[in-house]
């Protein structure tokens, strides 16, 4: 075995395999990059949606929630919360936090203005329209 399959051959498989599959990945990513704006309606990324996204990120919402399944598993999915609850519920919900119910998981109070709440909801609405190959399986997320 020592002679038949040498270390140099193993190294070449490593380098060749890495370069080959990296090249394929880059090519696929270029195509994915072209398709994403269609699948997520990037043309609807208005100033309000962008600001809503900034609020979600800079308050670390995914420290408890998931967005399209990514984040933490402590609180409900946000990718489809707009479909599940609608805009008014969401705004009201954020305003009345925390519930303070003993033992129940608590969401912190975020001091958003009405304008900020509108932007946030605009972003959540935008999220709910992404073509995610039919995930989550139902509205519960």
């Amino acid at each position, binding site marked *: 075995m*020592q002679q038949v399959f*040498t270390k140099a051959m*193993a190294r070449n498989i490593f380098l060749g395999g890495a370069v080959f*599959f990296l090249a394929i990945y880059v090519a696929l990513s270029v195509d994915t990059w072209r398709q994403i704006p269609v699948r997520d309606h990037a043309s609807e990324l208005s100033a309000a949606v962008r600001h809503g996204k900034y609020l979600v990120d800079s308050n670390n919402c995914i*420290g408890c929630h998931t967005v399209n399944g*990514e984040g933490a598993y402590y609180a409900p999915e946000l990718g489809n919360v707009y479909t599940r609850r609608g805009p008014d519920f969401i705004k009201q919900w954020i305003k009345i936090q925390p519930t*303070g119910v003993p033992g129940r998981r608590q969401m912190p109070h975020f001091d958003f203005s009405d304008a900020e709440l509108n932007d946030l909801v605009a972003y959540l609405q935008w999220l709910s329209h992404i073509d995610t190959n039919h995930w989550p399986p*139902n509205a519960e997320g």
Partner: protein
Amino acid sequence: MNFRSQLVAKPYFVAALALFLGQILFGLIAGFQYVDGTFLFPAIPFSVSRMVHTNLLIVWLLMAFMGAAYFIVPEEAQTELYSPRLALATFWVFLVAGALTILAYLLVPYSDLAAATGNAMLPTMGRGYLEQPLPTKVGIVLVALSLLFNISMTLFKGRRTSLNVILVGALWGLALLFLPAFYFPEDTVKASYGWWWVVHGWVEGDWELILSALLGFILIKMTGVDREIVEKWMYVIIAMTLISGIIGIGHHYYYIGAPEYWIWLGSVFSAIEPIPFIMLIVFSIRMLLKRRRENPNQAAMLWALGTPIVAFLGAGLWGAMITLAPVQYYAHGSNFTAAHGHLAFFGAYAMVSLAIISYAMPLLRGRVANGIAAQRWEMSGFWIMVISMLAIALALSGAGIVTAFSQRMGDHPLSFMDTQAQEQVFFWLRELAGVGFLAGLLAYLVSFFVPGEAGYDAAVKRALS
């Protein structure tokens, strides 16, 4: 240990273990908040305890990898480290920056931290594992550059073994793969797509190279097996890692808005990702069977054998269970993912760090191996931590399965919060197992304070003095 400059690895290892303890304490807080949602609220909301837990994990693993590099690269290159003083200064910079960041998480609301650190100018905050404010991220890059400069110069002036080239190359890869952390597009789908370059790129790509290099080094040193054989194995293993893992990243693209073809590509390629982990097991066992000498450091042997096995269970087995698109449809973003994340991170990267520490620390403390009593403590720690982590993974898997059935299937799915209430028993079990894990970690840490050296060498030393 043959070179004085290797001593600089010691503070890195000590700090890694201290931060590991911190990680576990905050894991226990977050775990308890799962069963009592008002615990420590609003002083430490769950998002904060979780962020401290996961960020400490990353920081202590990086500490351990850096310590390993400063220990291994000179030894392999057969020359002193290029600049031990730079390595020591870098250590303090990293430790202080890390500590300040954790303190900021605990003391300042996240959005205020973002506002105070220029996040609006270049947004990078608010993504899993990459929550650090901009100055910390820049600091991480600078620390990495200092490490890379130091070990690359060492590599160039000394012997260039394949093992050393792989290790140094993989550390370059680690730093390069961190750079997408600065790219956070406003399009959420593109942002997710790029986030996985860091996360998947690290744990299922580059870090597996580091894992192989550390294990390979330990095995060469402990068994005396011919380096050519070890290095050939390493190349084959890391070849399989990248052949499966690069396109395997597609298993994160099924349900985030990326095109449908990733469902096929991701499933096929990620399904073969367990192969390099299986090969790691075969490799370690074969090298240990071929060993040409008995090493008195039995604890290090245990870690070296345990690492590939638990890594396979966590990454290979638990990962494979959720990697096929039809299964992930129900498991995605559930506590099943957390079960896999825990067992894989622990089995692969925590355990290999503890393995190299177990091998190197006695040498850094001027002995071939610890005494029997210390090794008993260490090996008890090994078993208690491994068994507790398996229990954590089982409990979280139970919770994930309930989510799949109650919340995601059927005509009358339960809401998220109602489903979580059903899973309460699993969260209690996880917390219980977590306390077990802490006990194991404490037993492990005790081993460092038990005096004594391995019998034979201690006897020789006494006779010579």
